[in-house]
């Protein structure tokens, strides 16, 4: 839709849209980032190690899980395997988003470093109206990356001065954020069935088997439920 317009104004407009969309997410992520840094320091990581991990890995769920089980010296293979399990959802997310982005192959390989649950959910929502451009995606992903890296490092420096995160409800910010993102997908019958199946199975698996298996099994249950709930004939 923007092909005829000059490059620069479109570029700027896309960057602005990316910044506008990611701003509330970045703000909500600050307490989570501080919390991660503080918890990692308590496990014996230095502020530099925390910052390097956040900058290079940039995956909150996997980092929290790794820190939860952190010992010295670090068990490299175990951590890599846990990271693979927790981040396996990225494969589906990337496959789902890839046809909706307006980027060259090289741009995709570079910019998909910024693939996170939040940036992806916002892009899927934007993709309902228009293709996702590289400018939009990198503005959004870059802000979230800088935010996560800086504030987890700051959290590590502040460390134990932060006090109990549960007292101020900071541990719930992640949950509330995801509920807000899910609501963006609407209230159609198929979506409601998906959410119910995913929530039920994930909660049961987490209770009886444990993390991180609840993510894959809950997601799979939701996807199967959507398949069964949808009409059999092709939809527009």
């Amino acid at each position, binding site marked *: 839709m923007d092909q005829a317009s000059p490059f620069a104004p479109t570029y700027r407009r896309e960057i602005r849209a990316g910044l506008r969309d990611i*701003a509330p997410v970045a703000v909500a992520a600050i307490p989570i980032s501080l919390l991660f840094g503080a918890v990692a320091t308590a496990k014996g990581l230095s502020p530099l190690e925390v910052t390097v991990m956040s900058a290079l890995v940039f995956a909150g769920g996997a980092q929290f899980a790794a820190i939860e089980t952190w010992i010295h010296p670090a068990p490299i293979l175990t951590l890599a395997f846990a990271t693979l399990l927790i981040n396996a959802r990225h494969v589906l997310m990337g496959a789902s988003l890839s*046809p909706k982005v307006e980027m060259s192959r090289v741009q995709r390989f570079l910019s998909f470093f910024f693939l996170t649950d939040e940036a992806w959910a916002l892009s899927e929502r934007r993709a309902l109206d228009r293709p996702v451009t590289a400018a939009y995606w990198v503005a959004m992903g870059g802000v979230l990356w800088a935010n996560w890296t800086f504030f987890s490092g700051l959290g590590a420096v502040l460390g134990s001065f932060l006090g109990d995160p549960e007292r101020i409800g900071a541990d719930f910010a*992640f949950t509330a954020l995801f509920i807000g993102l899910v609501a963006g997908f609407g209230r159609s019958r198929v979506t409601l069935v*998906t*959410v119910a199946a*995913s929530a039920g199975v994930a909660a049961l698996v987490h209770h009886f088997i444990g993390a991180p298996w609840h*993510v894959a099994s809950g997601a799979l249950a939701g996807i199967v439920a959507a398949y069964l709930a949808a009409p059999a004939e092709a939809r527009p």
Partner: protein
Amino acid sequence: MSLDTTTLFAILAMAVVTYVTRIAGLFVADRLVLTGRAKAAFDAIPPAVLVAVIAPTALTTGWAEAVAAAITALAAFRLPLLGTVAVGVVSVVVLRNLI
């Protein structure tokens, strides 16, 4: 400021694995042409994954979290994202003190 060698290798391993999961979707996407139920299932991936990640916290931690999650869900259809997060955090703090 210290950077332990084993820790650095663990971080690098986590980073490489994570990046591979991020770009792996690019290889399968081109081969997917979906219609009907298959498309509905594929479109369901976003909400299904997001819900699965938070379901244990929202549903099985305790009554305070479960009720706060319900309040947050109601708020989510009326408020922008940051407002939704604020409602969620405030309600969980209040409920933890009440329940």
